[in-house]
């Protein structure tokens, strides 16, 4: 039976793993390749590397890092951050990335998603969506690492990218991210039930029960977290053991 996936996320800045709280206050958390290899050994199902400083000048650095990751890691990994063209993606895939994630650039030019799906297949196109619930109770799409609000509703944008060929959605709730108070169950469930592709829930995982909630009540196909793994608050084997005890199918 297909298992639920546990995915550590490594935010990369200048070649180091970092983690912020509510998208700010960045702290250093170590070498991404070492950390990624450790997680793979511990039983992580996939890894996500997001280059939060990606710019054109940094692209070469990123592709070198991806190449190093690919040489050392025996599970699938996704790379994101500043990807805006078919050529950007080709370089990353050639260096060993399995999937790429697009966010702001896809929102600015939605054809990018269609182009990537056509060129490389939907299986390697992850649409990352940062969303925040506003006072009106609606979830809106945010861009540029959460700094720019749009008037587009999360569910509408999610349908749009899936129609264009995105193979997975990586959904981050900005309200929950960094709080360790649990994932955003309602929006995760809404997307997971409405979309024909897997939804990876991100933002807010603090204790094992939060993962149980998002994978069961939230209907997520996978759960992503960063700092709780980086700072060893929860070990992956312990988390997956707990999920299995609660009757959730995981790879052990």
């Amino acid at each position, binding site marked *: 039976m297909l298992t639920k*996936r546990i995915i550590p996320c490594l935010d990369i800045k200048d070649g180091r793993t970092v983690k912020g709280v509510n998208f700010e206050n960045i702290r250093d958390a170590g070498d991404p390749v070492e950390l990624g290899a450790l997680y793979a050994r511990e039983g992580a199902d996939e890894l996500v590397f997001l280059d939060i400083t990606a710019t054109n000048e940094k692209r070469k650095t990123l592709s070198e890092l991806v190449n190093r990751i*690919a040489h050392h890691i*025996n599970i*699938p990994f996704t790379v994101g951050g500043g990807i805006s063209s078919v050529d950007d993606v080709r370089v990353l895939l050639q260096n*060993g990335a399995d999937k790429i994630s697009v966010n702001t650039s896809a929102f600015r030019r939605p054809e990018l998603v269609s182009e990537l799906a056509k060129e490389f297949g939907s*299986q390697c196109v992850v649409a990352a969506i940062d969303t925040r619930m506003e006072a009106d109770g609606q979830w809106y799409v945010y861009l540029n690492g959460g700094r720019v609000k749009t008037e587009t509703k999360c569910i509408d944008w999610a349908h749009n990218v899936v129609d264009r060929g995105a193979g*997975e959605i990586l959904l981050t709730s900005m309200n929950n991210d960094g709080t360790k108070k649990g994932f955003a169950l309602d929006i995760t469930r809404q997307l997971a039930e409405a979309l*024909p*592709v*897997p939804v990876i829930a991100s933002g807010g995982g603090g204790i094992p029960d939060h993962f149980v909630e998002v994978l069961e009540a939230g209907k997520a196909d996978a759960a992503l977290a960063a700092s709780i793994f980086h700072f060893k608050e929860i070990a992956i084997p312990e988390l997956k053991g707990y999920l299995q005890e609660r009757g959730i199918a995981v790879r052990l």
Partner: protein
Amino acid sequence: MKLVIIKYNAGNIQSVLYALERIGREAVVTDDAAQIVAADKVIFPGVGEASTAMEYLRERGLDAVIKGVRQPVLGICLGMQLMCSYSEENDTTCLGIFEEKVRKFSGEGGLKVPQIGWNNIYDLRSPLFEGVADKSYCYFVHGYYAALGEQTIARTGYGETFSSALHRDNFYGVQFHPEKSAQAGERILRNFIDLI
């Protein structure tokens, strides 16, 4: 030992190359018929769309080259599907090495298509799985699957039960990605290289 990875217009070739490096093996990536035929082992990888890939192989005569290889060949994911007789993906006639037909997942019961993630392989019947526990988890990414048949050497369930591996003569195929399947995948790659 000369290992060759067939180069064509499908993804994941690099991943396979790195996976072999991680287990201490070097491989040559080539579409040169002479090199393919002279190899000790041939790996036919693939992530992509069936009709485009078959068209590419036919244009270059690689279809006949692959069918004519006498050494062990391992097809991975799309590579395995292309070794089947037919794929529903854009109504494509494939290489016909395996008799099984490739069908699209129905998605019935709310199952998401493509299947993405770790699923177990069971009813293992081949030296390819020497030392690999029954129900081991492997990493799958696919919207189409090979039906069960005489040549099935591993099964997996996702709505339907399908062939997660096939074997005929010197030809082997796996639907999952051994190059991304952690220790189980590394063992399967080693088995292909060392045992078969």
